[in-house]
């Protein structure tokens, strides 16, 4: 399941961040996104915040939570899955 999400995220990131000449196959899910690897910058981090909100309904603070969540594509995927798990647990409790 996480593999599917990782592939989906790769495509979304390529699209949203205008990464030219990069395919999902080129992207290492565990490589750092910032400083090394894709070398994304602060605006890219804010775009990832928008991506998370628009596509997954999750709101985060870029400067406080961003560095940890956006470390790699895998950490983003794990965060999304954990968040969705918590929501499911909450709705199960309330039903």
């Amino acid at each position, binding site marked *: 399941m996480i593999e599917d999400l990782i592939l989906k995220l790769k495509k979304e990131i390529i699209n949203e961040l205008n990464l030219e000449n990069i395919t999902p196959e080129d992207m290492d899910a565990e490589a750092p996104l910032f400083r090394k690897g894709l070398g994304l*910058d*602060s*605006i890219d981090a*804010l775009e990832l*915040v*928008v991506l998370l909100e628009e596509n997954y309904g999750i709101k985060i603070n*870029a*400067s406080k939570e961003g560095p940890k969540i956006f470390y790699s594509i895998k950490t983003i995927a794990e965060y999304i899955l954990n968040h969705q798990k918590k929501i499911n647990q909450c709705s199960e409790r309330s039903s």
Partner: protein
Amino acid sequence: MVDVFVGASNTITSIGFSTAGHVKQIKANKIGISIYPGGNLYPTPVPLSLVDHRQLLDLFQKYLCKTKTDLQLGLFTRLEMLHILSISDVLKSSGINIKDPRTLIILSTTKGNIDLLEKDSYPAIEPDRIYLWKLGEFLKSFFNNSNKPLVVSNACISGMLAILIGFRLIKAGMYDHVIATGGDIMTEFVVSGFQSFQSLSPKPCKPFDAARDGLSLGEGCGTIVLSRNHSLCGIPEKIIVVGGSCTNDAHHISGPSRTGEGLYVAIRGALKEASLDPLDIDYISAHGTATDYNDEMEAKALSWAGLERVPANSFKGYFGHTLGAAGIIESALAIDSMKNNELFRSAGFENPGISKHINILTDHIAKEVNRCLKTASGFGGCNAAIVFKKI
């Protein structure tokens, strides 16, 4: 050798419709930034500094009646009302004839009439007034000035550039007088944009403070007279522009350089042109937006330039960051400080939160101010510094 005097000014923000009005409110520690509850400008609550709309309409209507124009309120955008009131106030106080062919209008704005992009915002106004040059032409025609106005749009240093370019053009003999007018209005366009950068504080901003967590947006308009002829300036004090400089960090389109080098070079350039040493400066009117990066960078630049002991403040704690108007509004207030030899506390500042010590004012004080440095930085990595001197 031509001296370029600064003269009468007008400032309009949430705390007043005149420079004197601003000073009165600042002395009373009035903060014009309050929580906007959510509505047209943004869906959720956010601190904003807004010009009193009813008072604006009232003053403008009275102005139209007094000047006996046939024009009605609906033919002016909000920004145009602000500029017209601001320019007319300055013309009242100074002896400058705006119809004189030796008078130039320089307009500074980041977004101009951007509210024209909103559906049905101004049914009676041509949509092409969204072009900044058209806004300039509109103001020039309104006041019957004969020169093509200069329009400067350079992010948050626009206002300072209007003053600096006015200074240069008068010194070069191209004009004798410049009306430098800067303005920007609050719109959903701007609020949403800054929110997407997560750069707005959830509380009124705290420039240079350890607890600072973002800027507060403000709307406003400022106008100031520049002239080679002191007797037309409208103020008894002889205050001149003596130097200025503009640089680019060449680092990143939205984040300032971490070292402060670009602003440092601008400060150094301004001081060099003014033939002054850092120790000659009596007061600094800083940019101080209350973002983490700007204030840190600015403190580094000021310290690097040897200005760490000079009393400094940011006005943005009183009325927010007024973008294209900021450089002119804040310069006008800095010059007022020079006129009256009084400095104001930097609103919102309690404990220093920058890595380099600078002397941020914590109280209003009386001090002889003969030489003042004004600084600003903006999106795109641009920086500006101007030195004003009393002679």
